[in-house]
């Protein structure tokens, strides 16, 4: 991939990799995920599109996404980044820790969405603040342990630091009453968590 040797701002890999881990997204979502401003993201996306690594689909479910070449380029570059930083053992260990937390996170999302009342699993209508507070407390407890995993990852590869910011931000907003930040919005705790999961698989080259 000769393009990857061209001089660049250094922001192209975060943009490319955000699409790899999060799937199709608009400029605003990529900006929120990377922490870059929207103009910079758009500029990177256009350059990446010129290189044939990303493409933009129109329509109601459209957005920017990777081409097959973009997927291959991303895999090559994150692997190179991982190995040149000597970070593989740390990331592999953190992935093991993540897998311990993952079922608990998914349980909590399920408990947030469904309640068992009179033996019937019904949608949580969020009319019982005490129940919601119990679940969010558990999210906070889980988050403390997730923070430790993210800190290990960020120490080895700084780009993983974004997940600390994004997960903490989602939890803060959820606890502040914006309930869609638990499992509904594209910036929800669950969404960011799923992207972190995908990132660990992509970074370590583990197929799904």
């Amino acid at each position, binding site marked *: 991939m000769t393009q990857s040797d061209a001089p660049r701002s250094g922001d192209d890999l975060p943009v490319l990799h955000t699409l790899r881990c999060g799937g199709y997204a608009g400029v605003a979502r990529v900006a929120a995920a990377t922490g870059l401003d929207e103009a910079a993201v758009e500029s990177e996306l256009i350059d990446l599109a010129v290189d044939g690594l990303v493409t933009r689909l129109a329509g109601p479910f459209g957005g920017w996404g990777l081409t097959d070449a973009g997927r291959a380029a991303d895999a090559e570059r994150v692997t190179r980044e991982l190995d040149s930083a000597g970070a593989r053992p740390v990331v592999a260990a953190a992935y093991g820790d993540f897998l*311990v937390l993952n079922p608990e996170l998914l*349980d909590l999302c*399920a408990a947030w*969405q469904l309640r068992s*009342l009179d*033996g019937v699993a*019904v949608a949580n209508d969020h009319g019982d603040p005490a129940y919601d507070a*119990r679940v969010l407390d558990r999210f906070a407890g889980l988050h403390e342990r997730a923070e430790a995993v993210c800190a290990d990852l960020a120490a080895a590869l700084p780009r993983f630091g974004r997940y600390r910011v994004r997960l903490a931000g989602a939890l803060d907003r959820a606890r502040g009453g914006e309930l869609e930040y638990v*499992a509904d919005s594209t910036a929800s705790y669950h969404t960011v968590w799923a992207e972190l*999961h995908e990132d660990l698989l992509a970074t370590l080259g583990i197929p799904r």
Partner: protein
Amino acid sequence: MRWVRPLTARLDETEEALGAKAHGLVALHRLGLPVPPGFVVTTDACRAFLDGGRLPDGLREELAAAMGGLEAATGRRFGGARTPLAVSVRSGARVSMPGMMSTVLNLGLTAEATAGLAAETGDARFAVDSRLRFLSTLAAALSGTGAADASTGPGTAAGRGADDEEARLAGAIAEFERAAGRRGGRAVPDDAAGQLELAVEAVFSSWDTPRARAYREIHGIGHDLGTAVVVQAMVFGNRDDRSGTGVAFSRDPNTGEDTPFGDVLFGCQGEDVVSGRTPVLPLRELGSREAVVWGALVDALDRVEGHYRDACYVEFTFQAGELWLLQARPGRFVGAAAVRVAVDLADEHVITREEALLRVSPRQLRHARTPRIADPARADVLARGTGACPGVAVGRIATTTEAAVRMAADGPVVLARPETSPDDMRGLAAAAGIVTARGGAASHAAVVARSMGKPAVVGVTGLVVDSAGASISVGGRTIGEGAFVTVDGTGGQVALGSPPVVTDGSDAHPRRLLAWADDVSGDRSDRDEVQRLGAAHAVLRRERPD
């Protein structure tokens, strides 16, 4: 004995002390039904373990004594080189919860005992297969992941005998021994008594995993309840082709219809059914292949139902054509099925009409109106899985996110995927309904489906999504992209075409129940159904406070 109780018809202690599983087994004993001999370690012992951080004084001796009792009852030797006794070790709290270790099978199959079992049965592959299952379930228990992953293990008793297969099994055993040792922080002892102590500790420890703690806090269950441990002589569902395992309801949990319903697997052990790794057969297959087992099972369901005075659920294993029951509990039906069972039981004079009314909560009645496939038994059901988001979706099958987005422009789409990842978010957004092969009710696909309010069935065992070939296959059938399917996210069915869908508001059973409600309340004015039922409940609760 202080910590251990033999499981017999005479055992008379609370569900708090024995756990739900042992309590159900005692009920089965009292009904005279076939239950493998066993004993229970009480929740008291669990609390003592959690307080002290080690098995309480005297428990080791009691385990050894109880094992001696099992040896006498079975005429076999625990860890013996000849006629070895193997046991199952299962957790059994008063409430079951995710994240808790569930089952270790075939415990006691040391290397020596495995050789003994091979010599006794003349079937080395069966013996080695059984040892592999022991190590894989123990490894899972020690790692605290709850579910065993014996994916390297053999599927069924069919196709046995190949030498390279035995070599592969030996390799898998070595791998699981290492994994169990690594996860447990120490080597797996090759003596049966040591293995039993390790497994009991694993069950007790699993009570305190973060997942289990989180579940209890959310659901208001006390941390001090503790779990019991049920230890029973193994019945081998993987013994031969006339052996197997299954789960059964006395009535259809989807509709409440009075016909046995469940899954069966031939040549397999219990975890294979629950884990969903192996495609299961409908329960009625048992009737055609093992008539005697079937007859005994139908009789057992009848008696257990009589005991609970309610639809019931049992887990069973059969070895060489002989039925054994491993667990029983009330069926806990929901929605329309709960309404129908209550009405039918009243008509059968098993319960009174007043009891029928009290068994259906207003929430159940409301739940009964969730759209469902009207009659799954008569629909062309392609596959079954776990209903993850209630409701019915009808649409054309798409096997990739790209296809789902493209096809959604022309009408509703059902997205079928092996599992989902963030990459599938566009497809999930474009689809009307979702089907996945892997994952449970808390998988990524399930969480996203609920956040979008889309009917979903997840964990469809045996579903293969062939994106390149634009088709799915399941249960021996292949369905091309674009075919119409119906997804019932309550019952967990995926049916071909568009079978009739009901909301049950006008169904005969709710109508009858509500007529009884009006008889009780004496109020026949025009009100909604929940009010009619609520008025009857108010009168009944006044008359018989409990």
